[in-house]
């Protein structure tokens, strides 16, 4: 074969391969929001925990005329990172699930375009962390707190701990299990809560964690393991023989624990140490290069509308951010009120997170 014929054959073969492949792609793209002609579809990118009642979503689709496609894209951090990487040609129109610990990363990378959602005035001021610019809209909130096993403390005639200080006391030695801060968001929240409590200079939170370590805190990789295997108060933990009566989880875990019991108990089997809470707020925003801007805006309006806000608690076990949303009766019955959770500005979190995680790792794990 002469070189020219060979080269032609190569080009033809390669071309054929690509054409076949893109043909395969083309046949499927009718369902894909990437098709600009298809403005009847609006795509929501979210993390794995996204959940909504079917009839609530159907309601929105009927009223607005849009069909909603949901793309669950890994855990919260992964979903945000993927969205940042594919910013120029996003996989959807709206991203839900950026929390206050990730907010600065998303905003600094220009992930969102401004849109002031209808009804934003009903959202509590304490949740509006991008006030004035409206690149993100607060959707839900919750608290990361230490949970305790009521039965254990009753059996041992011991008062459950109430504050960060308590956890380092000898009475609670070897009782607490928490999560690795570099792989778990409740783990990170608990670290940030301690940093908000004790400060980040000198002996601040690091001194506190030295005491916690000396007091026998146990660290596991993820929330599932901590809550469902090590914690003695959860249904899973009891079954697995968990022997730690204190766990870092959410303020909404007791309602979840009670509602998913059969029969439902009068009070939840677990409680919350309300002095150990760190507030987490989740946001949604219109992606910078969204194909369906109009649909995306309608979707954001829907996410803070009363119907969706009232539907959230029993689906994702988070609290509404709008003032007029009522909690579902089941949820309200077991809900624990947290009065003054610790908070931290997203900018401060962004500036310090990596360094703190690093020094926490060498302090606690090594």
């Amino acid at each position, binding site marked *: 074969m002469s070189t020219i014929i060979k080269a032609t054959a190569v080009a033809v073969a390669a071309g054929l391969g690509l054409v076949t492949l893109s043909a395969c792609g083309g046949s*499927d793209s009718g369902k894909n929001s990437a098709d600009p002609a298809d403005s009847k579809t609006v795509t929501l990118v979210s993390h794995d925990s996204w959940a909504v009642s079917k009839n609530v979503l159907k309601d929105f689709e009927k009223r607005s005329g849009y069909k909603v496609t949901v793309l669950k894209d890994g855990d919260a951090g992964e979903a945000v990172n993927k969205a940042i990487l594919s910013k120029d040609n996003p996989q959807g129109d709206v991203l839900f699930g950026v929390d206050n610990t990730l907010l600065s990363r998303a905003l600094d990378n220009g992930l969102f375009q401004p849109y002031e959602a209808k009804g934003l005035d009903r959202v509590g001021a304490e949740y509006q962390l991008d006030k004035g610019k409206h690149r993100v809209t607060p959707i839900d909130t919750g608290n990361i707190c230490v949970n305790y096993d009521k039965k254990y403390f009753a059996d041992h005639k011991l008062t459950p701990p109430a504050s960060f200080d308590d956890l380092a006391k000898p009475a609670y030695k070897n009782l607490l299990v928490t999560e690795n801060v570099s*792989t778990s968001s409740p783990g990170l929240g608990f670290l940030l809560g301690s940093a908000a409590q004790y400060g980040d200079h000198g002996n601040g939170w690091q001194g506190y964690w030295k005491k916690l370590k000396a007091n026998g805190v146990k660290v596991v990789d993820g929330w599932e393991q901590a809550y469902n295997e090590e914690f003695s108060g959860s249904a899973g933990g009891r079954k697995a023989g968990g022997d730690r009566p204190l766990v870092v989880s959410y303020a909404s875990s007791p309602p979840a624990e009670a509602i998913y019991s059969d029969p439902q108990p009068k009070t939840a089997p677990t409680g919350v140490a309300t002095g150990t809470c760190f507030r987490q707020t989740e946001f949604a925003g219109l992606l910078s290069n969204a194909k369906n801007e109009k649909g995306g805006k309608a979707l954001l309006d829907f996410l803070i509308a009363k119907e969706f806000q009232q539907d959230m608690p029993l689906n994702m076990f988070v609290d509404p951010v709008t003032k007029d949303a009522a909690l579902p009766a089941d949820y309200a019955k077991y809900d624990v009120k947290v009065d003054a959770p610790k908070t931290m500005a997203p900018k401060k979190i962004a500036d310090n997170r990596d360094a703190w995680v690093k020094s926490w790792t060498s302090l606690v794990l090594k």
Partner: protein
Amino acid sequence: MAVPVAFFAVFFAYPVAAIVSRGLKAGGHWQFGRIADVLGQSDIRHVLWFTTWQAFASTVLTLLIALPGAYVFARFEFRGKQVLRAAVTVPFVLPTVVVGTAFLALVGRGGLLDGLWGVRLDTTVWAILLAHVFFNYAVVVRTVGGLWSQLDPRQEEAARMLGASRWAAWRKVTLPALGPAVAAAALMVFLFTFTSFGVVQILGGPTFSTLEVEIYRQTAQIFDLSTAAVLTIVQFAAVGIILAVHAWSVRRRESALRLVDAAHTARRPRGAGQWALLAGVVATVAVLILLPLGVLIQRSFEGSDGFGFAYYKALTSSDSGVFLVPPIEAIGNSLTYALAATAIAVVIGGLAAAALTLPHSRLRSSGGTPMAGRLVRGFDALLMLPLGVSAVTVGFGFLITLDRPPLDLRGTWILVPLAQALVGVPFVVRTMLPVLRAVDGRLREAAAVLGASPLRAWREVDLPMVRRALLIAAGFAFAVSLGEFGATVFIARPDRPTLPVAVARLLGRAGDLNYGQAMALSTILMVVCAVSLLLLERIRTDRTTGEF
């Protein structure tokens, strides 16, 4: 050669290069200084150290445990051999999530060992090492055992007739012949354990991290793309070295050995010693491989209200909210994806293997340049690279490169089979290559002289000889695609999860029912893999062992 090269350029080199350069370029300039920065950090050096020593320890342990197995499978004839050989290969193609889960069920909290003796090995390095043996047992049995069964035992006997002791005969005759195969197997095990991800993540707890796990952490969680890029380059270099040594040892293995049909070398064990050896190997396989799989199956039937199919029934409902579809649909998705991936892998791998064979014969007849030979060998090693490159790197690379025409594939289903085919191709090439090289070029020439057209010559000469190898290659590609997890989890769409992805998602949720469903799905995946491997055992002849 053009098609496979184009395929690898577009679906491997380009995405990986794009994500690495994204991490290492700031304002249009390469930041090579980052490499020294990153490598200077003590925790990164710690990761490198752990990655290397655990891979080394895993390899040694695997060889120690699996070499007797290789001998038994090669030299002994016994009932149930085929089934047992398929069984030891099942773990190799199971996704790491399932392996990790099986081991947790055995050595974790509330596991079998915990229940019996209160022994818990999770979050210790022992769990990781044992899981690695479990995983790679088949690599040694197949690579070493395959060759061992074809060595002529009469050579060793001849040496003994000439007065050598049994040990001396083995050392002087068999060992040198086996050496390169052992080296090749060891290097493959080293490669797989060096890049270990799921096992270390699930069993290692927060304290152990391999390079691959660290790349995932830096990319997906910390979002430090430049550190991830540096680590990717480091891993790339390490894998390149491993593969270069591997290619060299494979070449040595191809040096003339007098091989015989394996059917004549295996016989029933004789004497107490040989029976004891056989029993020992069977016991090892039972404890190390069948037991974890058994625990998995048992848990899939053990519902909250007794033994039964409750978890399997739950698979058909989408109420749990974990997916948009009932988990059972994952089976159909997995099969479709794996079939498509197999088709791609067989075409690309087959062409690559053919391309790798042709220049060889031409080299010999026309005395081509040594340069061309080196080029071909380089390409050969290059085809193996996807086995050693972080799946998350490939996944992220796909995400940012295959998103615009003419390659706007991101929203389509073909993306998953493409990623899976990347891992399947090396297996196809390695299976086809030895067989293709064994086809005597003179047969083709003879056919041509007798007036056959090239097509007819191919059909009458090549096809019958490679047909079986092709089937085996396809079967392997299928099983590997079925189990691929790392890249799939990244790009599979939530409405179309594959089996391994579904298992991982279910394990990530609280609650009995989710755990039980994960066990049930793992069991189904295991059965599908086992059945395809058993079919392979039936069409396998000992002329077509290839390298896996």
